[in-house]
């Protein structure tokens, strides 16, 4: 049989750089895989595409993936890509705002990427640390390109934004960070990873193992060559080279060991329960791809 082909729907973000490096460097080919990366711009429907069998694999943020898993959609995590560092994602206020801390946003609206974003967990956890109730701040899901617009129009008091918009809003509109999500309880949280459907996992164990190996090679390479990461960004994302240089690069995960990853994921699953993104405790034991 010829090489096995995998179609991956992946958002155009920093987390997916290793995937593209692995493709460019021939890491997948070496495993006998042909990987086709379908770059997705913010649709939020990638999990549906995986479950429906329209694509083989998709990148999703951890909260979103866990949420799909916990609702019984039958997805498995193939690999986690990266963990957040300072500056990955920040709560920004406009130039004229007098807010200095999260507490100053009391009773106001905060724009977030989606209703299932880790930002909500981070903010609520920080509020809790300051002894404030979870509903101190209201969340409004807004697509990232509109963050500047909603902030400017006064629709929201702050936005929870990641790169490249974070950089652009700070540099060009004079926005200011009042909170960094990679702090406190969830500091260094896992950002996201690749999902497949249960059915696909069961049928393609060997290929997925090959995928994991190739990706690990690529994450290691990426961590060692931050410049190449920044250079790769404009190739598959819409980020321009000038902005890409200022982008904060996350730390890529160099392990596929379930025992290592599981606490990372469980930590977020617990936070989802604590901070109102999940109604019941989530047991992540069935979430990981088990080696064949």
């Amino acid at each position, binding site marked *: 049989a010829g090489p096995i082909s995998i179609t991956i729907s992946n958002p155009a973000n920093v987390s997916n750089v290793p995937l593209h490096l692995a493709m460019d460097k021939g890491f997948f080919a070496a495993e006998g895989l042909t990987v086709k990366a379908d770059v997705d711009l913010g*649709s939020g*429907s990638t999990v549906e*595409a995986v479950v429906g069998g329209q*694509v083989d694999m998709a990148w999703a943020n951890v909260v979103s993936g866990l949420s799909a898993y916990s609702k019984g959609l039958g997805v498995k995590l193939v690999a986690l890509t990266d963990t957040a560092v300072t500056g990955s994602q920040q709560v920004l206020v406009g130039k004229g705002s007098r807010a200095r801390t999260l507490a100053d946003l009391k009773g106001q609206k905060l724009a977030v990427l989606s209703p299932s974003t880790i930002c909500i967990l981070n903010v609520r956890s920080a509020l809790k640390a300051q002894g404030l109730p979870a509903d101190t701040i209201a969340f409004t899901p807004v697509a990232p*390109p509109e963050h500047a617009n909603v902030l400017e129009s006064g629709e929201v008091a702050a936005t929870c934004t990641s790169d490249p918009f974070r950089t652009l809003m700070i540099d060009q509109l004079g926005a200011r960070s009042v909170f960094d999500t990679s702090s406190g309880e969830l500091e260094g949280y896992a950002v996201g990873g690749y999902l497949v459907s249960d059915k696909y996992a069961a049928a393609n164990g060997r290929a997925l193992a090959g995928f994991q190996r190739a990706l690990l090679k690529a994450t290691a390479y990426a961590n060692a060559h931050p410049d190449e990461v920044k250079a790769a960004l404009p190739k598959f*994302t*819409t980020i321009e080279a000038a*902005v890409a240089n200022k982008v904060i690069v996350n730390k890529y995960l160099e392990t596929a060991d379930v025992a290592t990853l599981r606490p990372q994921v469980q930590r977020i699953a617990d936070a989802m329960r604590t901070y109102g993104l999940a109604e019941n405790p989530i047991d992540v034991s069935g979430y990981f791809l088990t080696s064949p």
Partner: protein
Amino acid sequence: MNAPVTTTGVRAEPRRPGVRRRTSPRGALAAFLRGTAGAALLTLAFEVFARLELVDPRLLPPAGVILGEALRLLVDPAFLVEVWATLVAVLGGVALAAAIAVPLGVLIGSYRLAALGLTPIIDSLRSVPGIAIIPLLVLVMGQGVSMKVTIVAFVAVWPLLFNTVYGVRGVDPVAMETARAFRVPVHRTWWRVVLPSALPLVLTGLRLALATGLTVGIAAEIAVGTRDGVGYFILRASYAGFHADTVFAAVTLAGVLGYLMNGITVALTNRLVVWDGKGPS
């Protein structure tokens, strides 16, 4: 008997240039100038608002900037490819919608039982926003052109359906009796009596369907992140960050595209519907 009405108390000009009286070149020029005047006014209003700089110009650039960018896009092959992709999806979707809506509309307009039975389903279905079913469609169809065509058809079907129904109900009863009296078979009656009579309204429905289809097609491209089309172009420009000029230029050109599609439909209408406004409708 019914001479062309040239001056009415309420009507200052000939009501319908129609086919018998072709618009003269001068008339066409005047119409063009009037249209341009209207468009210019709109542009000016936008320009003035933007120039007031109540809003950061990087988010809301003035009309001049947008138009300049639009002109650049107009000759950019990369953009034109996306226009083509959108056009294919929209026309395909509207064609599908018409193929469903017109026969169904004739049925509902003709038979009370069909109307009674289908109205609840139709009224419920069409209140469902297309965007709400996008994830479900992605599940079944993926993010390609077939999904776009489906979503366009889903929204374009209603204006066509309702205008057909109202058009069919408006057929002169005497005309229907005439067809029956000559034992014209049902299918031929639909084809030669009901449809021509309803045609003006069906074509209005088509115009609405095209406009709705275009906006929703592009909206779907934005919402689903399909791999091509004007919406994809807009989405990419907006994800690149702070390219409001390109975004609005593409949006403007989408509007122009809609304007052109409408113009073609109107020309078609004038050619097909010579009799409208000449007699009992």
